[in-house]
């Protein structure tokens, strides 16, 4: 798996991440300093990894969903529902693990619902998940009754704010789940089958692939990932904030998937590259926070940085660079990059 092709795939994301981190270093010279303070690693880099956790987790499921030519707008709302579920369960005196399992189950049910709309009722994914995006936050508020449901359960809090060997738990969780998912889809045939239905569902169905089940599964995975993210976010602030948990985070997740070089039209995907995308976004956020600019400028800065990243990554610009580099006929070059057709 750790092959030349794999590195080549994630190279652009690595370079961009490097550049953004370097910008961070420019505005804040101590950016890379990591200390060990009261039993936990303490530093900006750790913060980036830690704060990137929700987006990274959402990314895992979102990458798979997007690979099937879908999109999941509901993940933010599912985060809120899962957080609310976990919080209300521990507040009711249940053991934290029960609460987490409850939250994950609820996430899976949400995913099942989306999957049902998309795969069985054949509603377009963007609209199908819009339903839960709108209603889901209401469901979450229904659970918390509009309040921030606070809890003091150490076990649950540990998932969001605790550390293991000094490393914040969320970091471990997303790296573990991301790695697991990436490994799993590539070690089984799942990855290929998902790509196949994303590229051409009719062909895939005729080839005997059970596209319905696969589609449903993908949305369930997305729901579960969102639930994990929701639990972490709630645990982090020791309370389920149904109004704000995961608000607009679906856009960040989609952005991360695209920065990860995955096509929104489905097909080929790389979970690792998406995760790098999530970390790139978090580094941009960190840059904004550390720069000390007035908050009015946050959005403009973010937009410009992201635009720059995407433009650099666009196939067209890549092709231009390629042409400028190679003046000799590009015969012996990489057979994987498709030739660009003239477009004018």
């Amino acid at each position, binding site marked *: 798996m750790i092959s030349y092709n794999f590195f080549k795939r994630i190279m652009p994301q690595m370079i961009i991440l490097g550049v953004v981190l370097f910008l961070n270093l420019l505005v*804040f010279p*101590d950016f890379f300093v990591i200390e060990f*303070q*009261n039993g*936990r690693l*303490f*530093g*900006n880099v750790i*913060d980036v990894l830690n*704060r990137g956790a929700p987006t990274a987790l959402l990314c895992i499921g979102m990458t798979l969903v997007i690979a099937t030519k879908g999109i999941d707008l509901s993940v933010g709302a599912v985060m809120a529902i899962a957080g609310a579920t976990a919080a209300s369960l521990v507040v009711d005196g249940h053991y934290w693990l029960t609460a987490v399992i409850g939250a994950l189950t609820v996430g899976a049910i949400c995913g099942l619902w989306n999957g049902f709309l998309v795969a069985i009722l054949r509603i377009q994914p963007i609209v199908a998940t819009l339903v839960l995006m709108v209603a889901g936050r209401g469901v979450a*508020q229904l659970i918390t*009754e*509009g*309040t*921030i449901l*606070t809890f003091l359960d150490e076990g649950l809090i540990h998932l969001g*704010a605790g550390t293991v060997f000094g490393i914040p738990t969320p970091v471990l969780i997303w790296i573990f789940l991301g790695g697991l998912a990436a490994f799993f889809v590539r070690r089984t045939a799942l990855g290929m089958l998902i790509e196949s239905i994303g590229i051409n569902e009719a062909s895939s169905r005729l080839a005997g692939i059970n596209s319905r089940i696969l589609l449903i599964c993908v949305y369930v995975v997305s729901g579960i990932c969102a639930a994990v993210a929701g639990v972490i*976010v709630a645990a*982090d*602030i*020791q*309370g389920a*904030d149904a*109004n*704000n*948990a995961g608000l607009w985070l679906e856009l960040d997740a989609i952005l991360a998937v695209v920065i990860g070089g995955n096509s929104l039209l489905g097909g080929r995907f790389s979970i690792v590259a998406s995760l790098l995308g999530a970390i790139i976004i978090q580094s941009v956020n*960190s840059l904004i*926070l*550390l720069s*000390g600019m*007035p*908050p*009015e400028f*946050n959005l403009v800065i973010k937009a410009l940085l992201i635009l720059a990243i995407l433009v650099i990554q666009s196939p067209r610009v890549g092709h231009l660079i390629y042409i400028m580099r190679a003046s000799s006929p590009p015969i012996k070059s990489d057979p994987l990059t498709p030739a660009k057709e003239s477009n004018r």
Partner: protein
Amino acid sequence: SDLTIGFSQIGSESGWRAAETTVTKQEAEARGITLKFADAQQKQENQISALRSFIAQGVDAILIAPVVATGWDEVLEEAQDSDIPVVLLDRTVDAPEELYLTAVTSDLVHEGSVAGQWLVDEMAGADCRIVELQGTTGSSPAIDRKTGFENAISDHSNLEIVRSQTGDFTRSQGKVVMESFLKAEGGENICALYAHNDDMAVGAIQAIKEAGLNPGKDIKIVAIDAVPDAHLAIANGEMNATIELTPNMAGPALDALDAYINSGTMPPKWIQTESKLFTAADDNQAIYEMKKGLGY
């Protein structure tokens, strides 16, 4: 009385807002009023259309917590044409006074300056580097509470705001932004935190603890709203002061409406609610218990 009153609420974006809704419903019920409730999901356009729908239904009066100060003239005129009195909650609007009956609000700028004044007194001339957690960029509480606070500390050169960033009024952003403040300034170089609401302060407290500092002691914390969790934090010594924004705007509003409808008494144009300062001197534990059930 069998009055029907329409209540256009902004949404349910915070615990305080939920408490205001709860209290309003309770107050209406206590007076035997039928309350038509409309949640605008944070959108002014929804509020305007809700008001129009109330008018079309012919309610007896309208309560509105306007999401923003501007843009109400037209629809208020329509209400007036239909002889429906309108009472504003939380916030006044930029419309001619004769278009509404009265406004029950707190003074947001004043709240900020109470917070500032508290810090001025607390520091008593000692140098203090302050970090500020702003509310949602562009929202009027964020703007006014910032102004009030800055006014209060402007004459005291020992007090300086060194970093100010938005925390979107939420706990999690409060925590995230505080984390970055702590790294960027160094925890030991920050002496006080001013947060535009309690939720952000509660998030920030956790960040401060995780950085190995003592909130309330190493870093003084003052915020606004006086939600139950803030009282709890003060009781635990993790926070220093909060300024109350009462969720009971409806009580005075309904009283004024009652008087106006039954006896034609014109209320004053502005009914200001109290901006009470709570510090460790109060019995915060008791207040916490009392407020817990209000739907915050």
